């Protein structure tokens, strides 16, 4: 359904099932495609996790309970490198800080009440935040968040399980290049965030600090050294406040399709889905 002003006003009535045809909602469509794309790479997490030395239940606990891709990869990445449990926990926790910022944005945007806050919190990740904040209409923002959040949660866990079962039958993970897969996964998580000179400079500085620290401190700790360098850079810098902070995916096809809160005015037409034609009776 195209969100003409009148319909948008109707749709703003909190998500009654009849308020809008869900299948025609652009946010739901985007949410579903993001869910499939993101859920699928749960396979690589599951496989890498078991080859890092975690068992099936530990792998599933990370996907079910921790549920934040970057932090999950960080946890198993530190363990795979011989790091201690506390170093793995620290790296995962520091990476999870951004979800707190997303939570603030989503709370201001969606204003969830009661149990929805507690469930929504668990679903607050890069992708669900991006799907929601890219929408202009409050009802669509809500649908985008819940569709992407629930969809990714379900698929991510299913594909983690598949990956973990496949990975445990592989034998020597190095023979299959799975340690190379981990490197590629981290680079792929980092890449979309390198949008300007400052993020690149921070990434390089932290990479150098890491390499220098490796011979001198126990495994896992170099990552925390890099975290300190990055935090100092954030503390001291005066650049654009949200640089590098955006969720690390771009669910909307055309440039400028994603909008921070406050820019919603120019998000009127949603990309890719041409909702008006799609929903024309």
């Amino acid at each position: 359904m195209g969100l003409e002003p009148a319909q948008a006003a109707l749709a703003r009535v909190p998500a009654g099932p009849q308020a809008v045809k869900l299948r025609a909602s652009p946010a739901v469509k985007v949410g579903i495609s993001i869910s499939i794309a993101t859920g699928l790479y749960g396979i690589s997490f599951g496989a890498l996790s078991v080859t890092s030395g975690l068992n099936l239940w530990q792998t599933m606990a990370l996907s079910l309970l921790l549920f934040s891709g970057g932090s999950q990869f960080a946890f198993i990445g530190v363990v795979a490198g011989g790091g201690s449990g506390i170093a793995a926990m620290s790296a995962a926790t520091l990476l999870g800080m951004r979800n707190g910022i997303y939570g603030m944005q989503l709370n201001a945007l969606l204003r969830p009440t009661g149990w929805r806050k507690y469930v929504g919190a668990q679903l607050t990740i890069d992708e669900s935040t991006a799907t929601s904040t890219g929408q202009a209409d409050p009802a669509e923002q809500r649908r985008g968040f819940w569709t992407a959040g629930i969809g990714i949660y379900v698929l991510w866990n299913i594909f983690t399980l598949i990956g973990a079962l496949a990975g445990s039958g592989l034998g020597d993970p190095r023979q299959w290049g799975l340690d190379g897969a981990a490197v590629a996964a981290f680079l792929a998580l980092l890449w979309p965030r390198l949008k300007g000179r400052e993020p690149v400079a921070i990434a390089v500085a932290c990479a150098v600090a890491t390499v220098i620290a490796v011979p001198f401190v126990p495994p896992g700790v170099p990552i925390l050294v890099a975290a300190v360098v990055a935090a100092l850079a954030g503390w001291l810098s005066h650049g654009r406040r949200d640089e590098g902070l955006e969720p690390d995916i771009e669910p909307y096809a055309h440039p400028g399709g994603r909008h921070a809160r406050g820019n919603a005015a120019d998000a009127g037409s949603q990309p890719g889905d041409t909702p008006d034609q799609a929903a024309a009776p």
Partner: protein
Amino acid sequence: MSLWIWLLIACVLAYAWKLVGYFVPAKFLEDPRASRIAGTMTIGLLASLTVVNAVASGQALAADARLGAMAAAAVALAFRAPFLVVVIAGAGTAALLRLLGWN
């Protein structure tokens, strides 16, 4: 067993971060410093995790097939390949280089 404990603590803290966002007053959003640090820390940690997994073997540094994997992943990313393709490119390159004798 102790890995389980740290793993569960990580899960609890991850949820705590997420939940905190829903309960702090909105005016904290106006503090740019917290947002900036969350952003720079994410970049720094991912960069660090990338190189640690590429060149560290315990406390030693090594140039092995993982460097090839990193290069292959960078090429795939430059061509805007999707996540799963990037990961497969990394794995395939490392496996191939090992097959060719570069450990």
